[in-house]
């Protein structure tokens, strides 16, 4: 078994346990994965509107091998299905995105959104409870005041740890179209929510008002040819954000220039390669995800076949382009027919902005090292992941003689797609969502 430390400077091992839901229904399909800013917590949202938060186990001398494993911390129902009576349509409860707020006190806060409503959730621990009330007994029943002869001061006594999630804010009725992104601003006071045609800016404290900062809805809907696919705030500059479109362009906007940022400050667009032109050129150029690097100097975009890194200061073309699964280029018609061409893959940076990761089909996911220009394909599957073993690199055979461990393009399972992945902010720990299973891989370089 080849060790792939030759390709990348880390070795990923699967954990001793696989986090999986017990019932395999469509509601368990994971729809978003996100680490919190310290990496201590990992949140997943699923199609059934539930959020599951995992917490990293503290280091312990008793169980050194369990250091850094993630266990379930809290589970709650974030969104419920709704019915829009005016349009006779059901509003899905599927969680589209989760974004954590930076921690400011003992409690954790996250924003979760479905197609229409954003909610701010507070996750807090309770490990003490007051005992010894005067007016009620331990069961909560009111005591008869005439029986009280002495007063006592209630004391806090330890109890079993309880993690409770409470909705603190509900931001609703601001989006006519489906919300595809939320992004917390670096000022930690505001955030933006993005739907197909508009971007709204919210104050975290105020739920009954939002400001529209981008509106690309044409006066005549028949002229609509482009929608917004993703948006994100700059990690450091609270006035800057980017949004990507279905036509493959990214616009950077500065909120200081005007209240409505319909006019971009920068437009990142790569001219189309005429040799690759096909009926599906536009569809595959649609950007499914855009992410600033941690430094804020670079942008990463994901379209159907590639991942591109842009320098924020250069609009004319990307700095780097990485092929995720170019062998699919000749299969676009089939992928169009079975709708796979509309799949929206996300992409993530590692903590040092040196490695990119994104998903593919057949439960494969890819990593690209920007410095060494090496890339690797890994698989998130139970069969291939024995505990403590190293993840074996996979290879797709595109033609000619297929080698022993290779898999041919025609044998790929297109129902097993990895759309959502997350990378720990500092360490080499990755979370990969494969349909209804969550894989957490850690680098244990000893």
């Amino acid at each position, binding site marked *: 078994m080849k060790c792939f430390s030759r390709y990348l400077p880390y070795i990923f091992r699967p954990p001793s346990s696989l986090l999986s839901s017990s019932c395999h229904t469509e509601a368990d399909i994971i729809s978003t994965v996100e680490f919190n800013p310290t990496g201590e917590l990992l949140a997943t949202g699923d199609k059934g509107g539930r959020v599951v938060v995992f917490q990293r186990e503290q280091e312990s001398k008793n169980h050194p091998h369990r250091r850094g494993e993630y266990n379930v911390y809290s589970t709650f129902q974030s969104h419920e299905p709704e019915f829009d009576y005016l349009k006779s349509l059901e509003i899905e409860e599927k969680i589209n995105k989760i974004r954590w707020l930076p921690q400011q006190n003992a409690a954790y806060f996250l924003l979760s959104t479905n197609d229409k409503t954003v909610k701010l959730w507070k996750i807090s621990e309770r490990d003490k409870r007051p005992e010894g009330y005067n007016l009620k007994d331990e069961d909560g029943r009111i005591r008869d005041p005439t029986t009280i002869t002495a007063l006592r001061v209630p004391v806090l006594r330890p109890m079993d740890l309880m993690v409770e999630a409470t909705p603190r804010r509900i931001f609703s009725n*601001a989006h006519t179209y489906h919300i595809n992104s939320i992004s917390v601003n670096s000022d930690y006071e505001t955030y933006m929510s993005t739907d197909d045609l508009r971007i709204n800016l919210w104050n975290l404290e105020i739920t009954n008002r939002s400001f529209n900062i981008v509106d690309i809805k044409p006066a005549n809907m028949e002229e609509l040819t482009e929608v917004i696919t993703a948006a994100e705030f700059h990690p450091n500059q609270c006035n800057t954000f980017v949004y990507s479109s279905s036509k493959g362009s990214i616009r950077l906007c500065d909120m200081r220039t005007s209240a409505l940022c319909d006019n971009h400050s920068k437009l990142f667009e790569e001219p189309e390669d005429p040799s690759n032109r096909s009926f599906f050129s536009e569809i595959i150029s649609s950007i499914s995800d855009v992410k600033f690097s941690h430094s804020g100097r670079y942008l990463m975009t994901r379209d159907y076949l590639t991942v591109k890194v842009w320098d924020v200061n250069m609009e004319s073309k990307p700095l780097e382009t990485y092929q995720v699964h170019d062998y699919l280029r000749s299969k676009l018609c089939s992928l169009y027919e079975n709708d796979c061409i*509309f799949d929206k893959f996300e992409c993530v940076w590692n903590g040092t902005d040196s490695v990119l990761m994104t998903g593919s089909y057949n439960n494969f996911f890819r990593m690209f090292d920007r410095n060494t220009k090496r890339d690797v394909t890994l698989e998130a599957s139970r069969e291939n992941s024995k505990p403590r073993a190293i993840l074996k690199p996979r290879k797709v055979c595109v033609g000619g003689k297929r080698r022993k461990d290779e898999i041919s393009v025609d044998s790929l399972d297109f129902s097993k797609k990895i759309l959502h992945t997350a990378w720990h902010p500092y360490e080499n720990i990755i979370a990969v969502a494969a349909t209804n299973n969550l894989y957490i891989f850690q680098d244990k370089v000893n």
Partner: protein
Amino acid sequence: MGQRDIKAFEASMKRKNGIPTVSMCRLDVESPVVKKEVEPGGDGSVLSSSRYMLGRGVKRKLSTCEDPSQDLPYPQQRQLVLDLCLDKLQSCQRRAEPSLHRSVLLANTLRQIQQEMRQEGETCFPSALLGPSLPHASTPRHIPDLPPVPLDCPQPLTGALSPSFPLTTADDDEEVQLGGAENETLLPSFAGEDDTRSLDSLFGSFEITNSTSYLTDLALDDIFEDIDTSMYDSSDISVLPCPAQRSGGVDDGLKSLSSCSSNSSLQFCLSDLNDLDHIMEILVRS
């Protein structure tokens, strides 16, 4: 509420209820000729066109890596994509959660193909075009800025293809009928691929265009003159009033589509949308 249990490599990963649209989709093909092989006791989803063989453990010959559609001559490739486009756009209305993003991409692809066909049509004999292309494409000169997807227009999608008709003359109506007839005769040759679904959608579109032929005398603008169409906020195509079609099959859907496109319901739809938008404005402002 299901809990996520930590299971140490327990139960199998197989899901019983796969995602309806895609389960095992293989791209391998033996030949582009009709060959409908379904895996015995296979998964629920079957690729609509039997052009693509479903295989899972079925022995295949060393097949080409290329898409079978790439073996076809360009016009037929284009026709295939066009058919698929229309298919998908129609099915958008039947979906539980229609996606604006998807609809826009499909519409743009459709527009691009139609534009190409239109340009070619200007150099070829128009009658030659009538056959392989669809009725609305056969009158290229009269197609305005191609609104094949009126995303918030109250008409159902295929009915919306008919806006091109109001702008045509009576002659073109005949052309349409002609085109229809020719289509019917020529389609069987394409239907050698046994793509019955695409046939349905084509015939379905005829149904609707016939029922909306009353629009021939009216210019599109006149209908909407007193209605502020710019205010429509709809996140999907299937706004109204066809909730029934989501539950029905293809035929049901088409029937309700044709019933929807009657003039009275059209007006009803439009005023409803006006109210909707008004309410929406209030909600957003509050």
